């Protein structure tokens, strides 16, 4: 009975985090972008700092008509948002928040599991791009596919470097074996991982699959209302997952002063700081071209991550 209750609590906890944190990131993005660009629009709704903007957006999405183009592959078109969204929910359960088992579910091969499931999310965009039977959507889908070739490999290699350093694939295990000098040791890998993650989430400066000034909105061009909102939710849930993973792998997760009692807070603070960086980059950088991303990935990110693996291996063998 107790076990059932425990599992139930964990499930509810993961669902709540999944529904609340992405909205917090979205709200922060509104406000941070408004401040950085001196925009008044997002500061208006509801009075104080435009707090009601997100509520208004939600109401708008919920009562908008759901249009499926006559030419589209109807069922597949309607299911694509779910495929884009659900992997991020499943990933959340494996990410440790605090010490002593403060994690949805500790998995032995957690790192491997997380990377594998995150890779599924991109299928949502591909399916949406193809099923829409729209030229812009098709171009967006093809760009998404191209992007996959660029980011997946640096991500895998740098994650493997962390697994080498920790000697385990379990995410709580990785954080437990963390020492402060890991961050300088793995800094190159961390930067590569984060950059590749941005490309996976199709966030600026790597947002060419949805480039609104070139191909309307890429794979999501034909989507309206709730289904479009689910795609947006997937993007922001992706930000939460990427930042939490970077925190766990490279920034020591719950480690920090008073981490015995406040470990979970450290994880949240580090994740939030990284999410701020993601928003900041969106405001600061122009969009790359798809071929420029390929060039960046294959001539910079992959050689750097191979070098990081070599460094990790040498240091690890020397100190053990």
């Amino acid at each position: 009975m107790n076990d059932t209750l425990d599992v139930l609590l964990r499930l509810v906890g993961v669902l709540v985090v999944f529904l609340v944190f992405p909205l917090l990131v979205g709200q922060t993005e509104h406000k941070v972008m408004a401040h950085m660009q001196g925009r008044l629009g997002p500061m208006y709704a509801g009075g104080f700092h435009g707090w009601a903007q997100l509520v208004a957006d939600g109401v708008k999405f919920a009562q908008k008509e759901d249009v499926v183009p006559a030419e589209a592959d109807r069922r597949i078109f309607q299911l694509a948002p779910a495929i884009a969204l659900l992997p991020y929910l499943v990933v959340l359960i494996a990410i440790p928040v605090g010490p002593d088992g403060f994690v949805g579910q500790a998995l032995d091969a957690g790192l491997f599991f997380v990377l594998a499931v995150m890779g599924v999310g991109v299928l949502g965009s591909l399916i949406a791009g193809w099923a829409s039977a729209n030229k812009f959507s098709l171009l967006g889908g093809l760009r998404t596919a191209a992007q996959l070739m660029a980011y997946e490999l640096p991500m895998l290699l740098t994650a493997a470097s962390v697994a080498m350093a920790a000697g385990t694939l379990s995410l709580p295990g990785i954080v437990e074996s963390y020492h402060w000098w890991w961050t300088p040791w793995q800094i190159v890998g961390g930067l590569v991982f984060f950059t590749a993650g941005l490309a996976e989430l199709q966030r600026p400066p790597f947002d060419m699959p949805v480039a609104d000034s070139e191909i309307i909105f890429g794979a999501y061009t034909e989507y309206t209302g709730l289904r479009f909102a689910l795609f947006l939710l997937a993007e922001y849930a992706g930000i939460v997952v990427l930042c939490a993973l970077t925190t766990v792998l490279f920034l020591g997760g719950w480690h920090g002063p008073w981490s015995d009692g406040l470990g979970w807070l450290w994880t949240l603070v580090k994740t939030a700081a990284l999410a701020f960086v993601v928003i900041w980059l969106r405001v600061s950088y122009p969009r790359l071209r798809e071929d420029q991303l390929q060039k960046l990935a294959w001539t910079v990110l992959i050689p750097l991550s191979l070098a990081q693996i070599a460094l990790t291996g040498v240091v690890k063998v020397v100190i053990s």
Partner: protein
Amino acid sequence: MDYFHGYSVVGLVAVVGVLFVTVAFASGRLLRPVVPTREKMLTYECGVDPVGEGWAHTQIKYYVYSFLYVIFAVDAIFLFPWATVFAAPGFGATTLVEMFVFIGFLAVGLLYAWKKGVLEWT
């Protein structure tokens, strides 16, 4: 037993997710208006009537990258089981040399592709 218990919880999360999406779609159906017209159901093409069909022929110039990617990704998978044991007592220097051989293979492959000019899109 613990192993399967862990993954059964993961399976339950997936079920929760499917339920969430089902509830969202069902309540969306109740909340939104449905007024389809022929013009509304047309494929979007900047406001003019669509020309030809949406599944248009396109040239995929990056297919060489996908070959490279598949080769490298399969190699990278082998790193994970190796990563957890390579520094264990009794391995040390030997596995390190093996690692450099492995990375060397990858690096030479990458350099070859680079020299061949396939890392240029156009």
